[in-house]
């Protein structure tokens, strides 16, 4: 990207992509001493043209590249794409398949939130403990995923028409066991990290995003809910089995980095609740309707919205009489939140030392924003 002209009185720092905390992006910071005057996000280092790739793949084959958009949260992304396909092709999904989908979406959400939570700890310099604890605890979820789908990272388990396979034997008991274990572990996180005096000093009152600003700038997901606005696509535009499931939309009134961290923490609790419900109350029945691998669609235009761990993902799909979509527009949540991050320097005073904390509070995933 071409850089705007540097003002002579301010130092411009290129923060990333080789920076230890930046991820695959570059952020230009205009700093005066420690104070950040302006943030310029330079995205696109991981642009792979997924929207173009999807135009050249059949509906089933497209699931694999699109799941690579967010590796920690593959099921939610795949869920959005598959539900768009189902709407375009008018495929009915059996009830049990919907419940299994919800279960996988929630497990995926916990997985992603745990990662974000650990990175938040690392961004404040709390490297030793919490990041590795979350990594260990994510292994529980990965083991459950492996038991169910056979893969540990990208599952392509949700297919048009249902899900790939039913629960293996004794899987419900393992789910309950995993949920109980994670519940026990989260007490440690709360006491060691969220209630930690130094962590509170770092995160309280930092980067305040007022509710009206959050709406105006198009924030989504935990960033929006951390500003106290109860918007959640799972409630607003229900998909899968969410109408039948009992869960709350988490909001925090404080609007700062701590509020976003707490939203993630408490959303994990809600997801665990959903996991427990699915393990106990899942209805019996078929798990998929037969769909041909090379299914052809009719001309249609559909829009599917799902709540991923980072916010609302919109898939706007145009189809015509062909085995592949005509055009897929992906409204990715990270791109929306990155704009909020860029504007945060104008809304609140941010110091150089706060940049990693603030950027991890919006939980960026640059593969998602760059697509």
């Amino acid at each position, binding site marked *: 990207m071409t850089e705007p002209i540097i003002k002579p009185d301010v130092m411009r720092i290129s923060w990333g992509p080789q920076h230890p905390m930046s991820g695959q992006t570059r952020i230009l910071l205009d*700093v005066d001493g420690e104070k950040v005057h302006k943030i310029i996000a330079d995205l696109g280092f991981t642009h792979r043209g997924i929207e173009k790739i999807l135009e050249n793949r059949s509906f089933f084959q497209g699931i694999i590249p699109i799941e690579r958009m967010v590796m920690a949260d593959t099921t939610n992304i795949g869920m959005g794409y598959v539900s768009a396909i189902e709407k375009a092709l008018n495929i009915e999904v059996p009830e049990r398949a919907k419940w299994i989908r919800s279960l996988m979406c929630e497990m995926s959400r916990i997985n992603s939130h745990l990662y974000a939570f650990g990175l938040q700890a690392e961004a404040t310099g709390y490297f030793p403990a919490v990041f590795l604890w979350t990594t260990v605890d994510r292994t529980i979820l990965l083991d459950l995923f492996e038991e169910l789908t056979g893969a540990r990272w990208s599952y392509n388990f949700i297919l048009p028409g249902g899900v790939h396979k039913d629960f293996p034997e004794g899987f419900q008991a393992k789910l309950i066991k995993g949920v109980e274990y994670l519940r026990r572990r989260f007490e440690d996180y709360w006491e060691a990290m969220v209630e*930690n005096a130094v962590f509170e000093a*770092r995160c309280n009152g930092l980067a305040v995003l007022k509710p009206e600003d959050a709406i105006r700038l198009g924030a989504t997901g935990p960033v929006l809910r951390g500003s106290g606005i109860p918007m959640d696509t799972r409630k607003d535009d229900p998909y899968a089995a969410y109408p039948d499931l009992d869960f709350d939309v988490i909001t925090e009134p404080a609007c700062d980095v701590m509020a976003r961290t707490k939203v993630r923490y408490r959303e994990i609790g809600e997801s665990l609740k959903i996991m427990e419900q699915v393990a106990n109350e899942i209805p019996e029945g078929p798990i998929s309707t037969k769909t041909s691998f090379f299914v052809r669609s009719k001309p249609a235009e559909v829009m599917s919205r799902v709540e991923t761990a980072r916010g609302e993902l919109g898939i706007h799909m145009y189809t015509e009489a062909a085995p592949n979509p005509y055009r897929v527009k992906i409204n990715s949540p990270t791109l929306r939140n990155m704009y909020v991050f860029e504007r945060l320097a104008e809304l609140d005073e941010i110091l150089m030392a706060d940049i990693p904390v603030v950027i991890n509070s919006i939980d960026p995933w640059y593969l998602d924003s760059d697509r």
Partner: protein
Amino acid sequence: MTHLGLLRAVAANSFQFSRTDAGFIAEAFEAVVSFILNLPWIALEFLQVNAKPLTQVILLPGLAFVLVFAIIAVWFERKFLARAMLRVGPYYCGKRSGLLQVFADFLKLFMKEIIVPKDMDFMFFAAMPVLVSTLPAMAMILIPFDSNWVLWDIGSLSLPMFFAIAGLAPLLPIFAGWAANNKYSYIGAFRVAYMYISAEIPLVICAAAVAIMAGSFDLLKIVEAQQGMWFAVPQFLGFAIFFLGVIIESERTPFDIPVAEVELVFGWRTEYSGILFGFTMMAEYVLFQAWTLMFITLYLGGFNGPVLLGMTTASHIFWLLAKFAALVVLIILIRCVFPRLRLDQMLNLGWRTLTPLAVLNLVFVLALKVLGVY
């Protein structure tokens, strides 16, 4: 002619060497030959006279202590943090203990290329890590390990001298950050400047309170004054402030602000590579060592402790090292428990909390002194 006299003669004659005088050349040749022949005896005499200082330089407060501590501390920290993180830490080098990993890493750092960025002041840049790691080690020669095991016993100057030498250390990162010609190094260097000034003032006030209580600036006398009770008990405030100060001075979490890895890539150490980086890592541990020893000397009774097996000197050294080890474990544990503070919070802590409390501590000590309790 004594050996020293001979040496003096050689030295005196060598100035006149430019004169081409045949007799002089023969004389000089003879002197050199006799010097070489007498070298073992000269060395023996030197050793006899200087046996104790030499042991001290090489062994206890000196080179071996510094190096062994750095090796063990690096290894211990890695293993300890790994346990807190539910990992196993270094594993394969050295039969699962991972002790040899430290040597392997040192060897790796030694072999690596020293990258010299463009437009930098290389001599300045390269000198700083070496100085940063040796200056605090020089401050350590003042620490009494026993009443007759002090390398540089300068009487009532020792406490001010320690602060004078150790107080130089923060200057060097500033130079290093400037010399590296990197924005991150530059910010890191200025963080060092801010942080040390805010931390050093309460430290000096606390040390002054200790000196008043002991009635002397002599570290030995301070230690002897603590035979009945450690100064940590009457001066609990000073104890807590100095403890925080030790962590700040040795740049450890939660005060590792100048090298904050996730904010500034590695602060003032960003551009160092190879063995120079090794020296900067070493400097962290040497600083840590010097300030912790000082902390024990001032507040935790120094080398005082019950005499074991009738060996006074050995048990005194043992007690000092035991206290040192316990503090090291505690400070490393703090690293697993707390995130890093921001610079402004740190400055608030230093100027608004620690400095007034240190003055309060000083007033308290003066009151005790006036009332005649001490």
